[in-house]
């Protein structure tokens, strides 16, 4: 890059989860212009999909709400939802980035009254609840959406139903003709805060998640336990809606496994402690068996494990289950070897939760060729111009993600301030 190349002091943050939002507000509050690009219709990322979060079991609003306020107050943050990075050219200090935006079909004057949803009839799979239920084709992504604005699914554009939805909006916010668009921006540094996605449970064939409705994943458990989830917060069996009496939690489902994710996903042991707590809070008689290789409660979180160990209805079984079989009554039966007693067991359960791990959300094809390096697992390798925040850089919990995002903001500021 020659010295005459104009430099930009704007910072691009890709991904609007807790890490991206934190990096954006930190950089903006330090006096830099920030462009925040989020692929979905709302900020919040996976944190918004949690029922509660450790260590203090607070509601996700605690962390998100305050940051939304900071974004609202800041004049330096430009937010683009339903947007992603298409191409990147240039180098540190002077990147030209093309951003592509998918149509929301709802303009900013939406008041979130919900009249459009009342008018809509078609239902689409609800990604917020991992497809466990459906939403109307005109919907609010979730109760904590930011921006607080509805989305109309393109499926109804150009249909009579679409026109009916449009007519229902009193403020005329619906624009069914909106098309995909793109624009270019000049930025000096790029922070990748693209987060994670759950490891696909259907690949763990021995655990039969795809075949057995009462074998669910930990992210599905978070939604089941949430008041804004598919069951309004009641933890029940997906097959028949019954209250589970015997629940099994299976740790390291796909993590620490060379056939799947070679690394420890770090948060799933503690996530399962939450799940044991959720079940025990709802059902006095229920028992929970935690199958583990070793419980990894990082940092100060050991006390959370100890709390659950004191509950006589929570049993810890040192064993990585070999497989799940359908039992005589069709219930899932967890089979394996208890490594402390050497007993080979086959235990029936009403509900089995797989503690699936986190993998980087940027798929191999989506990884940019410049402005980011990646490690063998596809996590952003932070060095030089490659700046990552949160789980895009490795398996982290929320507080560690926030720390890494603050560090990322500082690195980005250094890049745009150099030269």
């Amino acid at each position, binding site marked *: 890059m020659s010295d005459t190349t104009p430099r930009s002091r704007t910072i691009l943050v890709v991904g609007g989860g807790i890490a991206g939002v934190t990096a954006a507000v930190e950089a903006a509050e330090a006096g830099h212009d920030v462009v925040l690009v989020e692929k979905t219709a709302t900020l919040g990322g996976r944190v918004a999909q949690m029922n509660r979060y450790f260590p203090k079991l607070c509601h996700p609003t605690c962390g998100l709400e305050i940051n939304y306020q900071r974004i609202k107050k800041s004049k330096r943050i430009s937010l683009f939802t339903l947007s992603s990075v298409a191409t990147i050219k240039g180098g540190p200090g002077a990147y030209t980035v093309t951003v592509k935006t998918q149509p929301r079909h709802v303009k900013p004057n939406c008041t979130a009254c919900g009249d459009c949803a009342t008018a809509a009839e078609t239902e689409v799979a609800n990604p917020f609840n991992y497809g466990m239920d459906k939403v109307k084709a005109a919907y609010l992504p979730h109760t904590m959406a930011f921006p607080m604005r509805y989305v109309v699914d393109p499926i109804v554009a150009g249909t009579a139903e679409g026109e009916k939805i449009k007519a229902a909006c009193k403020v005329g916010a619906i624009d069914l003709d909106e098309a995909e668009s793109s624009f270019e921006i000049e930025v000096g540094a790029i922070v990748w805060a693209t987060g994670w996605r759950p490891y696909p449970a259907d690949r763990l064939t*021995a655990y039969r998640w795809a075949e057995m409705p009462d074998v669910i994943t930990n992210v599905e458990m978070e939604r089941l336990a949430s008041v804004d989830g598919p069951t309004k917060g009641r933890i029940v069996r997906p097959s028949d809606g019954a209250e589970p009496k015997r629940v099994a939690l299976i740790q*390291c489902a796909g993590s*620490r*496994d*060379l*056939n*799947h994710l070679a690394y420890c996903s770090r948060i799933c042991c503690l996530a399962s402690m939450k799940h044991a707590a959720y079940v025990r809070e709802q059902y006095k008689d229920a028992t929970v068996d935690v199958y583990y*290789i070793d419980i990894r409660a990082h940092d100060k979180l050991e006390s959370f494990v100890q709390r659950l160990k004191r509950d006589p209805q929570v049993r810890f079984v*040192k*064993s*990585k*289950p*070999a*497989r799940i079989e359908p039992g005589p009554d069709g219930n899932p039966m967890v*089979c*394996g*070897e*208890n*490594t402390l007693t*050497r007993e*080979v067991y086959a235990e029936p359960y009403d509900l089995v939760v797989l503690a699936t791990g986190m993998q980087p959300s940027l798929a191999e094809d989506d990884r940019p060729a410049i402005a980011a390096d990646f490690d063998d697992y596809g996590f952003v390798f932070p060095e030089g111009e490659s700046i990552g925040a949160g789980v895009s850089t490795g398996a982290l919990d929320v507080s560690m993600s926030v720390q890494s995002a603050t560090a990322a903001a500082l690195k980005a500021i250094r890049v745009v301030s150099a030269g």
Partner: protein
Amino acid sequence: MNAMSPTPSKKYDLDFARWVYDNVDGGDRMALCMQCGTCSGSCPIGTQMDHGPRKLFMMIRAGMKEAVLTSNTIWNCVSCYNCVVRCPRQVPVTYILHDLATVAVREGYAQATESDNARFGKAFWWSAAKYGRTDERLVTAKYYFSFGFGEGYKKGMANLPIALGMIKTKRMHLGMPHKCKNTGELSKLLKKAAEMEAKKHG
């Protein structure tokens, strides 16, 4: 692999684990075992093993050489490979068990020559090496009579109805044993392989 562990006479040998890592087929990966239990839980005959692979690997680490080499686990493995497919550390459990069985034979443990599975393995190998094929009748006969004539006769008579049923459904044939085309070449090949192994590991 070496013919013998460093001190075959020792019951306990704290160097045994290191020796297994370096010399047993797949032993280098056994070093990565994290004692999760998936292998023993996956085993279709896990309840018929005295220890199962996971515990056996722990015993190797604990230097319990004799207990390992006299265990029925190394003989009862049926090579289904369930454990190998599922092991999160990609430990080739099956290879290790089979190679430990050959170590047990070489070191002359009685269990390694007298157990049912050891006798059957021997009969199987005899037929495979001699004919290039396994002949059901001869393998079975050889196995039965390895217990002595009287015992062999008794076992044979007890299983006669099964044999007749197999003949009827053409699962067992009468007449000359099955053979591969050129048994002479086969025995030359096996001899050469034995020479190579002896030379390589002495």
